[in-house]
């Protein structure tokens, strides 16, 4: 349905019919949309180290890692939804907050395993509801996840009363949040492990293969005998599980949890994914490049903070970057088609 991306009414073009390969075309736009993130992230880090006072300090780097970890975990998970050509999952905001509150709040009263169990059930519920609405009912993913965001946040605020939960000072959550390996917090290592696992799933398993194939061509994937509804549900479940882990990490970082703590995660995660070169048109993308996108967005935000630039302008800058990255991708596809 929403595949009406072409606005100008362009008459259909027939296939090229020369024998053998069509001529390979190198395009700067194509390169930028797919591989640009390597160069830009490297440049940004170099600029930050050389020109920005206070960036290259150990404390600052650790801080960047702390902030990047939960966003990064959400982003690598949500990469699955984006690659499967379902735009994004806006409800990660609600999912992360819910997981945080459950982890801290429920473990205070009912114990740690119960909290994790409940969080897992909630995450699966999110994934399945979003996935069924999009995969089976063919509803638009943006609208579906917009509504589940409000349902989820509504339930969370209602049940939690909007209050802040504090973990015990000596509990396992606190311990996890404080743990570091040299300058690198444990949460950043969690991000790396999850990235590695999801990279493996996306590139080396049948399920990941079907996600990419479905994103590239829904009709062809269905006609190969694939249960495409399951593929979509799977993509949303992966995203939900990642959002749950991100919620744990976020709660552990501050040893507190509140329903508003993940505001803006939808935005930051989408920025990282798109800047990482995953196409919003589906089919193309990589978890590893999303990780680079996370580093890019986190470093950029950190630089802006260090330069004393306010939250509003940060949002404008990153919003502009998203639109720019999507435009480059869209234009590159157009060049590629000609």
């Amino acid at each position, binding site marked *: 349905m929403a595949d009406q991306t072409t606005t100008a009414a362009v008459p259909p073009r*027939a296939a090229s019919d020369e024998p053998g390969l069509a001529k390979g075309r190198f395009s700067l736009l194509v390169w930028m949309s797919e591989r640009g993130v390597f160069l830009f992230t490297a440049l940004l880090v170099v600029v930050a180290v050389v020109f920005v006072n206070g960036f290259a300090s150990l404390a600052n780097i650790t801080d960047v890692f702390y902030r990047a970890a939960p966003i990064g975990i959400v982003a690598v998970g949500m990469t699955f939804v984006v690659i499967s050509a379902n735009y994004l999952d806006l409800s990660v905001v609600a999912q992360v907050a819910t997981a945080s509150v459950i982890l801290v709040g429920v473990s205070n009263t009912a114990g740690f395993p119960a909290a994790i169990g409940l969080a897992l059930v909630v995450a699966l519920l999110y994934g399945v509801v979003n996935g069924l609405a999009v995969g089976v009912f063919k509803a638009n993913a943006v609208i579906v996840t917009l509504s589940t965001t409000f349902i989820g946040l509504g339930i969370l605020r209602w049940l939690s009363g909007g209050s802040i939960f504090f973990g015990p000072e000596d509990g396992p959550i606190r311990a996890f949040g404080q743990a570091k390996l040299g300058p690198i917090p444990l949460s950043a290592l969690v991000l790396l492990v999850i990235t590695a696992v999801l990279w493996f799933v996306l590139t080396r398993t049948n399920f990941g293969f079907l996600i990419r194939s479905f994103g590239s061509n829904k009709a062809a994937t269905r006609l190969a005998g694939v249960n495409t509804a399951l593929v979509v549900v799977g993509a949303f479940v992966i995203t939900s599980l990642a959002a749950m882990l991100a919620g744990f990490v976020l709660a552990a970082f501050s040893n507190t949890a509140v329903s508003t703590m993940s505001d803006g995660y939808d935005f930051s995660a989408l920025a990282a994914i798109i800047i990482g070169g995953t196409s919003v048109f589906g089919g193309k993308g990589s978890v590893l490049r999303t990780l680079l996108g996370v580093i890019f967005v986190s470093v950029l935000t950190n630089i802006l903070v260090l330069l004393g630039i306010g939250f509003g302008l940060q949002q404008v800058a990153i919003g502009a970057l998203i639109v720019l990255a999507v435009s480059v991708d869209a234009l590159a596809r157009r060049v590629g088609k000609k």
Partner: protein
Amino acid sequence: MKPDMPLPVLEASSIVKRFGGAVAVDDVSIAVSAGEIHAVVGENGAGKSTLMRVLAGILTADQGTVKVGGELLEGGAKGSLEAGIALVHQELSLIPEMTVAENIMLGSTPTSYGFIRTRQLKAAAAEALDEIGVSVDLNESVARLSVALRQFVEIARAVARKPRVLILDEPTATLTPAETDHLLAMLQRLANRGMAIIYISHRIPEVFTICTTITVLRDGKVVDSTPLVETTPSAVIDKMVGRELSLDLSSRRVATPGALVLSARGIRAHNVNGVDLDVRSGEIIGLGGLVGAGRTELVRAIVGADPRYGGTVTLWVDGHPRNITSYQPAVRAGIGYVPEERRTDGLALTMSVSDNIALPNRRELSSAGVILAGKTARFASNLADAVGLRPPVITRDVGEYSGGNQQKVVIAKWLGRKPRFIVLDEPTRGVDVGAKAEIHRIVRELADNGAAVLVVSSDLPELLELSDVIHVVRDGRITGTLSAADANEKSVMSLASGENLVGA
């Protein structure tokens, strides 16, 4: 042009239109005068529709000029409309949510200060409907009309623009004989009043009822353009198919049909009105017919890719009958389907050859859900070699390959499943000659190895060369069955167009 003919209203000279490397319209010139009904005929894919889209300004010609009343045509679709060319499309282009009157006046709605002048709108629409002799409630939403009435509304839209040249592309495809007669009479009236009409049709009898001149296209070229009185239906069909004795039937296999593999009973679906079909092991069944006859809908309903309204499909799996109700189980039970549109339905163009071949075979190429990379690569490269992919680089994106190679990849992915029953819909459309021969070889090998094969093709020589039995489909029904020995281009065409020209 003959000296006694009046000055042409529309004159197209040396039109060339290419799509990628393929030449769809090759140096075509055509002239139509006021009061003339000019038939343009040709097989599927002869370039008729492309030519008409060029004349209507929807496509821009790569070479050549179009003149209307002596003036060069410019400004795309809008320019053509303003110059007085109106095209009635083959596929319906009405807006379902709008009323009949609004649809008729779409794009030329009368307004004052931007507001629609409803009374004038309805008057003009009523006039157009009157002109074509059809009465429809002007306020009715088009979504409620029958297909035939929609076709007339579409024609009314063209007529409402008071065009100098009216182009109709297969207007009778969805009409009953009575409706067709009505349409033909109406066109005659319009022509008598001085309108120039270009009439595209597969249906030769209609052409001979009303047209004054006929132009035959084949492979994008004009093969004949003559006053109708100087030719006969039989001669026209000969020129359309053109290859009278050129057909190489020496490559035909001797079919040795084995056990029944697939049997479809009473299939009804969108555009399919009750079809029975049996396919045996080792047999190639061809489905012939005109574009829009319902062949693609039929095969999609058989394999379960689209919903059926009625009927049953049974697949024999090692002697056990199995009901085929939906697509996924059909594929798992050993059905393969090469769809008509390889770019939109057949291939993930941004993925590699290897990935595309692996897609339906992923269960065999993985262990506990983890892809076996080495096995996949060997599997894909063996199949790429088997279908003659050139160059056989399985890591490249399929989108980088030419049409013929892409089609080989689509076939390769099903070959890997060793299908019991495989459907190939237009297997060689837009494919170069070399690849075509190879695809034919593959299809024969499939049958020789015991598969039951169903081929849909609008390419008559292909159909005749490949098939052991040809079923001809018209209006969603099988209207005739020809064995390999009896079939020729003329007999298939006659059955397809509904005119008995042969024997009888």
